[in-house]
């Protein structure tokens, strides 16, 4: 079964072709980072407008790259949520109508399920059951994954997502947009232990997160240093380091708790923050100590992409799931509402 995957839930237009026999055939991506950079953050209306311009040219491109024609497609999968309503609508309208005209089934894919299954696109795939840590600009959660569509939420962020905290902290330190990766790079030059930032919500049981306090802590530290005449790049780097260490530590502590709680030996990390090397390294060390294994997707499949949507869609189509003749998108869509896929 050859499936076209369409991702347009936020600021990346991603297209991919996945073949259940041969694996991933091609994937292409158009990032809107430069567009939104001028505004200091994602402007939803501009994101939607950009998706409309790029979706078909990218579709042509990905089919050519995959070496197939559109008539060879067996299904169309598109992100139907959660995400920006207007942005989701572009991929869903185009994808659903395309499937209708091609006379093939369409399937609505949950964006986070896409992220969660992204490690399956690699050679070594994790086996069920496992614990997944999903960390991106929009989400931070821990879930127990017993099978496709069988997700039990173990904990989530009560305020900012981890990626959001990275971006907001970077913005407050004047690091530009998108700040997360810039902050992480600067943190590499920071001195470990220059500051001790709190590890939010680690002093009590439970698997929920809270990152908004860390951003305020960073700002206060920066202002205090500025007042004392220490406004320089090393101070900035030290704060970045302390911030990143606090976030990474917190994610590691909660992930360890989660795998111990459910008795899992496998941890999967996915989502944009999963590209953070310091996080990968620390989680790897932790899992080795626990006698388990860490899995993650290649860097480009940590952030939004069409490949994960094509893959998750293919699994759901194989499981017999199809969309009715309507376009359904949901800005909010709890993962617990997904049906299990029984192949």
């Amino acid at each position: 079964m050859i499936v076209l995957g369409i991702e347009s839930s936020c600021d990346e237009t991603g297209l991919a072709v996945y073949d259940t026999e041969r694996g991933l055939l091609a994937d292409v991506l158009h990032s809107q980072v430069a567009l939104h950079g001028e505004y200091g953050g994602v402007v939803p209306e501009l994101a939607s407008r950009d998706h409309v311009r790029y979706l078909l040219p990218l579709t042509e491109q990905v089919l050519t790259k995959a070496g197939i024609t559109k008539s060879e497609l067996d299904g169309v999968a598109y992100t139907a949520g959660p995400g920006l309503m207007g942005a989701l609508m572009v991929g869903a309208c185009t994808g659903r109508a395309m499937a209708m005209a091609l006379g093939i089934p369409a399937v609505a894919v949950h964006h986070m399920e896409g992220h969660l299954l992204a490690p399956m696109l690699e050679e070594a795939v994790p086996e069920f059951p496992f614990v997944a840590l999903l960390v991106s600009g929009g989400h931070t959660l821990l879930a127990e994954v017993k099978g496709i569509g069988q997700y039990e939420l173990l904990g989530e962020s009560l305020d900012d997502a981890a990626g959001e905290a990275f971006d907001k902290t970077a913005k407050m330190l004047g690091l530009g947009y998108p700040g997360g990766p810039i902050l992480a790079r600067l943190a590499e030059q920071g001195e470990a232990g220059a500051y001790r930032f709190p590890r939010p919500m680690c002093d009590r049981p439970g698997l929920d997160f809270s990152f908004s306090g860390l951003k305020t802590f960073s700002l206060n530290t920066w202002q205090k240093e500025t007042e004392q005449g220490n406004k320089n790049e090393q101070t900035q780097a030290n704060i970045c380091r302390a911030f990143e260490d606090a976030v990474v530590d917190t994610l590691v502590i909660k992930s360890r708790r989660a795998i111990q709680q459910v008795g899992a030996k496998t941890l999967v990390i996915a989502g944009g923050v999963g590209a953070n090397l310091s996080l990968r390294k620390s989680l790897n060390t932790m899992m080795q100590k626990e006698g388990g294994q860490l899995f993650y997707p290649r860097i480009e499949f940590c952030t939004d992409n069409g490949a994960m949507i094509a893959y998750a869609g293919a699994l759901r189509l194989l499981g017999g799931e199809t969309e009715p003749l309507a376009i359904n998108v949901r800005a909010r869509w709890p993962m617990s509402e997904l049906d299990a896929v029984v192949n």
Partner: protein
Amino acid sequence: MKILAIDTATEACSAALYIDGVITEQYQLAPREHTKLILKMIEALLDQSDIELLALDALAFGCGPGSFTGVRIATGVIQGLAFASDLPVLPVSTLAAIAQQAYDDHQHQYVLSAIDARMEEMYWACYHLGDNGLMKLAGEEKVSSAQKVKLAVDLSTSWSGAGSAWESYSEQLNAVLGIQVKAIYPDYLPHASSIVKLAVDDFQQGKAVEASQALPIYLRNDVAKKKASQ
């Protein structure tokens, strides 16, 4: 000739099929229900006429102005259909569709077509009767406050008004135009039947584009402030 048209730019949702001079239409006033309805409307029209999408000559859609999301629903659907079936596309103005309806229903030859654009503004344009009983644009389509609306006075002194802005801003419009408007149809919304009619002519004039070039006309483009100007 066979053309399918859709429109989802306003509270109205419609699809129309033109087959060799005969137009059939599905139309529903359905705020926020467009995504649930539009594909079923298309399917019903094709089924009724027992025709396949691939047997059509072209597709058409209301390309705006209108609600941003609404315009993008029609654009996305048409892009998807056109790409999959290799059909050319005719983007048709929603303001033109409203003006066309005013002529078809009441034979008004000079129509100020205007859609409420919120934020104290409207999308508007002057249309007048051209060849073949089809309405033609005079000047440009614009987005502005009612105070900045100007009639194409060299055409006529006898104008009619149609579209939702005539509901929201009728007082301001009457004050600024300085003439007695002949008739007003504030409840007129774009219909796919008007769009398909205009599309037939556009198709004959070679105005069709390929799927990826079937893009919305928003008119309002200053939707966000850049950092420097914040």
